[in-house]
């Protein structure tokens, strides 16, 4: 497992890596436009353009575009990018190809904290939810790390994955117990817990946005050092990297990216796991490329998945998290098989 993560495909030549950026941006832009152009109600493209250029709040079709589809598309871009980058950083720093915010317990920790705060303690302030989610994700990350460190052999990729799985299962059980104790209050969180972009409150983005932007910039700034760290602590230290300080900074970035995403859309699985693997196939092992590519590809992927969730069985919608799992699981199996050959 360690070897797979530590020695992925060689880095793509800069020209090849650069050439993919405009293509990815074009795909992202096209998916963004498609996301706001299609939905349960069929709208002529002219109406969509009118809504974007000359918004009339009394026109229902304009409201659909501006108040329903556009905020949802923006949230999909933000969440997709953040989860993918969080997954990429975790895979680099732990040298574990199975690392992602979901498998290492961060998503479960953030979900658990939000569920407890809203359902059992009546938290309703949108401004506090990202902080609660961050505290939960951080606590879960630390618990997973210390459990992995405590077992014989220390915090290896395998022990981290197992500890993450155990903590995720434990927190899921705690959420179930809280559900049993207060069934009715949990009705409001039922769909959020499956990971959904439907009806998400855009004001959460107002509170999480600045933090997510800082964490994203921090991730981009740390990317070069993550490449070195992915070669092993000894190598990194030999090259002058202060590994403990670097890991702490990466932990902060990952926790903020994960917590902000969970606060926005609930626990969405497989994005942080699959996207960095797909990206590596193209750009190789250099995190200076993996991080920005993951951000763009993750945003595009979640937009595409959410389009499917909205138009698969109109006018009904499927939870986005269900589609990410349905698409992500087989895709991940395919990637693992391809790498093992």
């Amino acid at each position, binding site marked *: 497992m360690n070897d797979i993560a530590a020695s992925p495909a060689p880095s793509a030549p800069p020209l090849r890596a650069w050439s993919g950026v405009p293509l990815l941006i074009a795909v992202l832009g096209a998916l963004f436009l498609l996301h706001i152009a299609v*939905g349960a109600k069929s709208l002529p493209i002219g109406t969509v353009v009118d809504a974007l250029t000359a918004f009339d709040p009394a026109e229902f079709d304009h*409201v659909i575009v501006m*108040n329903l589809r556009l905020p949802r598309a923006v949230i999909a871009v933000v969440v997709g990018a953040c989860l993918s980058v969080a997954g990429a950083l975790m895979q680099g720093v732990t040298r574990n190809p199975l690392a992602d915010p979901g498998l290492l317990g961060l998503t479960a920790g953030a979900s658990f904290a939000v569920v407890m705060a809203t359902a059992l303690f009546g938290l309703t302030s949108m401004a506090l939810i990202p902080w609660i989610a961050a505290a939960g994700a951080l606590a879960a990350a630390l618990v997973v790390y210390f459990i992995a460190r405590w077992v014989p052999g220390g915090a290896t990729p395998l022990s981290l994955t197992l500890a993450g799985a155990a903590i995720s299962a434990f927190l899921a059980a705690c959420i179930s117990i809280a559900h049993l104790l207060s069934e*009715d209050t949990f009705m409001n969180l039922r*769909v959020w817990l499956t990971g959904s972009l439907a009806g*998400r409150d855009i004001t959460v983005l107002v509170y999480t946005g600045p933090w997510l932007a800082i964490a994203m910039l921090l991730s981009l700034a740390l990317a070069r050092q993550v490449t070195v760290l992915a070669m092993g602590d000894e190598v990194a230290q030999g090259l002058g990297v202060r590994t403990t300080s670097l890991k702490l900074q990466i932990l902060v970035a990952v926790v903020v990216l994960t917590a902000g995403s969970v606060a926005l859309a609930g626990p969405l699985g497989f994005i942080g796991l699959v996207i960095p693997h797909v990206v590596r196939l193209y750009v190789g092992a250099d995190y200076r490329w993996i991080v920005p590519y993951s951000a763009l590809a993750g945003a595009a992927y979640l937009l595409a998945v959410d389009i499917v969730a909205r138009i698969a069985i109109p*006018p*009904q919608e499927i939870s986005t998290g269900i589609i990410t799992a349905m698409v992500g699981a087989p895709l991940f199996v395919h990637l693992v098989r391809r790498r093992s050959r």
Partner: protein
Amino acid sequence: MKTAYALAIAALFALPAAAQETRSFTDDLGRTVEIPLEAQRIASLQDLAITVPLIELGVMPIASHGRTTPEGEGFIRGSKVLTGVDFDNSDIEFLGNLPVDIEAVAAAEPDLIITTPWQTAPVEQLEAIAPVIVLDDEARGDFEIYDVLAEITGTQDRLAVLKDRYAGQVEQIRRLIDTVDISVNVIQGVDGQVLSWHTYGALGKLLRDAGFTFPERVEAIPEGQFERMSPETLPELDADFLFVTYRTDTGETPADAFAHLEAVMPNFCEFLFACTSNQMIVMPREEASASSYYGLGVLSYTVLSHISGRQFEHKPE
């Protein structure tokens, strides 16, 4: 181990039931069960679908499934306002929620257990306590379950009285309102989507029995089912009169019914004819959704008072 112990005790308790006169009954799972001819100690494992109808039929169950408040107190959902009976003012034992506590069921010493597919307590374990009948309330319909419960409990006369009273209430609405010319619908905002039903519980039954019309989009929903729809379809769900509901058992108010819709679609009111025309009717969900003839009575007079004898506008085609 605890369950095995409970089942052993239950087997002892089951002995008196075996001594009663019995008859064969085929339930909705196709199981043929020997049940007491005159069951005296019925345990209901679904509060809204079984317990409330039993109480309305004049049969007081000895134990019932229920919900819990945030403080951990058990209650029979909707029963306090529909029948006046709840755990705190009757001898009905609280059996828990999903699944009910098998040991509590055994301790209640029932001679007949009535459950539904919704209840997750295993029928195989319950059978060791007393004869078990599984009634599929969703397949049968909210009020058709009264017929089978009346047959099981020998209360057909009481049910006939309830049905006659309801028929009179429907007739009253038909006499006072030109229902065929009025479109109605029931909507609810949940999790970023709008819910709409082919027939929404007691309210839907009353509106259909009275002869109101429904939007085409609602008629397309299969009978007995509901759909979660994108808020983009909101105008398709509009009607002359729109009904929305709020949960009283969780302390909601009419404002919450509108707040849920607002969360789904900001400024929703501006895009619904019924709302801009002040023809939205808000009512408690328990009365509107429960399988209750008392609820039907309350609803019939609510509909009468809101629609009859007033000026209103028809939604433009």
